[in-house]
């Protein structure tokens, strides 16, 4: 979790972490808050109770940080919360004690993000050990941040 003192995303300080959207306007592959968690929508379908009933939307989402699956069903007229999400690419400059050192555009280095678990983390570590230069994509939403992707530097 980000240390408040190291908050460099001052651009949206004080801005709400979510905004409302009518259920029917959500889109597959977009984001939504399910059970308090920011999720990517992987399935969206509608149903109704009785022939003359109103539409309900059935949502299946994957938590963008934990990869856990969540489901919800609600009337399609309802507003759902959509998380403000942000993706930034940073250059990886060091790895120490399980933390990534990432260089931002302005030259500052942040060292508050853990090496992600699983295959991606291993890939980052092995490539870094091999001396490859990499860009790490950091996803942030609802006050959480995590490295979610890596790509070799092209130049």
């Amino acid at each position: 979790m980000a240390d408040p003192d190291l908050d460099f995303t001052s651009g949206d300080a004080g801005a709400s972490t979510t905004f409302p959207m009518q259920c029917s306007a959500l889109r597959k592959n977009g984001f939504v808050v399910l059970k308090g968690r920011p999720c990517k929508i992987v399935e969206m379908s509608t149903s109704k109770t009785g022939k003359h009933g109103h539409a309900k939307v059935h949502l299946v989402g994957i938590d963008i940080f934990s990869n856990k699956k969540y489901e919800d069903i609600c009337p399609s007229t309802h507003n759902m919360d959509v998380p403000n999400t942000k993706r930034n690419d940073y250059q990886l400059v060091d790895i120490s004690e399980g933390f990534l050192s990432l260089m931002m555009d302005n030259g500052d280095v942040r060292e508050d993000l853990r090496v992600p678990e699983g295959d991606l983390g291993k890939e980052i570590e092995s490539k870094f050990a091999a001396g490859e230069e990499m860009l790490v994509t950091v996803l942030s939403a609802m006050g959480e941040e995590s490295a979610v992707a890596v790509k070799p530097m092209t130049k």
Partner: protein
Amino acid sequence: MCSQAPPSMVSTEQRQHAEHIFLSFRKSKSPFAVCKHILETSKVDYVLFQAATAIMEAVVREWILLEKSSIESLITFLLTYVLQRPNLQKYVREQILLAVAVIVKRGSLDKSINCKSIFHEVSQLISSGNPTVQTLACSILTALLSEFSSSNKTSNIGLSMEFHGSCKRLFQEDDLKQIFMLTVEVLQEFSRRENLNAQMSCVFQCYLALANQVLSWNFLPPNHILSCREVMHYIAMFEATQNVMLKPTASWRETLLDHRVMDLFFTVHRKIREDSDMAQDSLQCLAQLASMHGPIFPDENAQLTYLAHLMEGLLNMINGIEIEDSEAVGISNIINNLISTFPRSVLTALPNELFASFINCLTLLTCSFGRSAALEEVLDKDDMVYMEAYDKLLESWLTLVQEDEHFPRGCFVQPAVQVFNSYIQCHLAAPDGTRNLTANGVASHEEEEINELQEDDRELFSDQLASIGMLGRIAADHCIPLLTGLLENRVTRLHGQLQRHQQHLMASADPGTVDRKVLDDLYEDIHWLILVSGYLLADDPQGETPLIPSEVMEYSIKHSTEVDINTTLQLLGSPGEKATSIPGCNRTDSVIRLLSAVLRTSEVESRATRASLTELLSPQMGKDIVWFLRRWAKTYLLVDEKLYGQISMPLSTAFGADTEGAQWIVGYLLEKVINNLSVWSSEPDLANDTVELLVTLVEKRERANIVVQCENWWNLAKQFASRSPPLHMLSSTVQRTLMKALVLGGFAHMDSDTKQQYWAEVLHPLQQRFLNLINQENFAQICQEEAVKQEIIATLEALCGIAEATQIDNVASLFSFLMDFLSSCIGLMEVYRNSPETVNLIIEVFVEVAHKQICYLGETKSMKLYEVCLTLLQVYSKNNLGRKRLDVAAEEDQYQDLLLIMELLTNLLSKEFIDFSDTDEVFRGQEQSSGAGRAVSAADVVLYGVNIVLPLMSQDLLKFPSLCNQYYKLITFICEIFPEKIPQLPEELFKSLMCSLELGMTSMSSEISQLCLEALSPLAEQCAKTQEKDTPLFIATRHFLKVSHMMSKPLMQEYSELVETLLSNQRDAVIYQRLADAFNSLTASSTPPTMDRKQKVAFLKSLEEFVANVGGLLCVK
């Protein structure tokens, strides 16, 4: 007995070993003596079964070596064996009889073994009076019938189709008739008896089933000259035996035209109709007799006599009985077969009284089956027999009335009224109707969950509705006023009910207390009334301009003298008032009044939404309304008098071109659309139907001209362009279609100032907002802000909608407009490289543009599109190569990207197949002479694209069927269009391409391997052209030759060898010669094979002749 033992007793190995012993035993040479011994001594059923099988297989295998006498004695042995052992297991007995049948059939052509002696034996068995023996006789006949039918029931004995066909012909002229006669005798005997015990009933049932099998015989035409189609016929006959219409040869006249035969089946049915199994067979026999046609009838008179007798029998059978559930489908089959088989001229030549009582009976049956079908629905039965029977009868009605000019005028009106009334009654709630009432009058009302995959009633019941709509037209005088009255009544009640609810809500403010039962009943009534009205008033032909049905037109004309036009227009123009409150409302045109009843429904709905009662409304009813209005508008709005011989004054005055009525209604529809889009944004289906109505209004130039004169239209355009609520809450597909409609409207007739203004308000804001946004200096910083992302997504969606609106006459301006965006989109790819959802949408824009526009583009313009696509792919590749993601959706995202990229490449390639750019002049004056500076070709873009796609493709991704399909479609296209480019590919790419082809040929579906083979042939031609022997392409192609040969596709090099083999397998000298000749003429025209198109066509033609000539010999079963 290991192969039969339960799994607990033997191991898998033991079982396999045991099976192996049986298999090799069946292959042993001349096993006859051993088998006979086994049959006589063994007590184990399974061993007996295997012995019988061994005999059958050996006889077929060693046929040439066997003497006629020994074969005959074998038959006698087998028959005697079965006769002497009445207690054999059924499956053993049938296997032995199967062996007999196969032997008889094998010998029927060359060893003159015939069925005569067997028939003699069988008739003795039948006359024995012993039920067991009689059943055995029936089994013998059934086995013969199955073998000779050359259908899917026939055993595989490794002989040519022509052999099977000849046997069948021989059999159907003589032996089949014998079997039928024997069967008829037995049935006659049984039908005479008073009481049948259970055992005798069983025998009866066997023979009835046999009779059904004979009457379902798929007769081969008697001639011996084979056409190519007939070879197909052979092959087809091995597949299906369902739904064969009875078409016996002329030699069957005496048998089947004998009235006693038909009478017998009616008698039989009467006797056994309470036994549901047997009744199915007896009714099926009658249905087959009702389908009889062809050379059996010497003339129309014979047909008439036959039909009259059939009808009398049928009426006698039905009248005065209460039909059992199990009879419904059978009876409706008889009627349906009869009506679709016998020509109109024969039906009309029937005695009047007979025809009238037939129609009367059909009417009563239809109404009664309809009621029972409704009951089945209420009870939610699994087996909907009455629904099936009802569907069949409605189909029969449609066949009858579609050609009603042959019949006495008006003869179907009363029946149509009755059937129509009963349909309406079944679909309305009590007290007018019987919907949801069980047999004892109890209402059942259950709310079930309905998911989005369930079809809407208008599609689910489209066949029924089409028939009912047709009958409604036949009886328009009754049906149109009936529908109008009912609908007006329901709408008034709905209005009142909603008002009561509103007062109630204002008093208690608790919406939870509202009882929806009354409302839902009204909605369901209105739902069906609108569906029936829609199907009655208009058709929905795909692609053609629908015409006002002639019956409706005539109806309106007939009454036009009694009609007051002004009152009619007043009625039409005041949907907010009760129709009956308008003075003189009974002197209005009824067709217009029915439309206005729907408009009244629409008005009640709109007013309820304005009074914030949307919660109480039915989105289903909303869909019904816009569905109806769309169907109606396509047919009636701006009715074109030139298309009709005569036209109704009220209709042309109200809806003709340049009429106030037409303008008024366009305005009304537009208002409806706008209202719906704002209050129903949460109902995706309803919003979709609504926006489709809008597209209908603008897709035809004449209608669009009126639409753009409406202020509302401009408001809608401005509102959408400003991206303000509520339109932005619509789902993305609806937004796209809305954009499409707005663009289509822009091509209506307007003066140039107006036009300029229109585009300034529709398209330019889109461009302006977009440019302002992306040109901001800090765009890179703010691009991740949610508001910015929403704006970008909305723009991309709108671009897709604009591309969808492409038509030949607007492509020039739309292309220029979209091209500007496409370049900016490339920049977006860079900015949003780490946002997969945006990347995906950007690619989709390119796909849509290429899909809709490439076929119209001239060379320069195509080049521009190729270039920008190439850049897109380069950027995509740069950003995604080596990228690794954590989340579980990564594979799905990549799959969607790749699918779109391949779609894009395929769309670009399609230019090579579909190209309108030469024949039209949409770009005249804009196209500079080009060719010299040709920078990029489609091939370059596509090959570059493939280069990107291939490294990202994996065998796992190919498991997505749609991706796999698209991928192979693409590489086949490439091989077909640019074979010369293939050898020049980089080595890695070449290798992976060839790997993909091999994978596709060997381990994918047959559809995919066919695509790969199609890809291969241009590659082989390419080799043949260059004549170089050691190029990688040559080597690869040679490799494929072997691969494809393993799939038994004879190719050139292997061809002569194959011919040799085929010829040497032929022992019959005549056939040998025929084959050899056929092969010679097949290759005569094309040796040595060259590759031009003419040659290919010539070869295909000889191949077709070849197949017609000897295909029957080479297809083996």
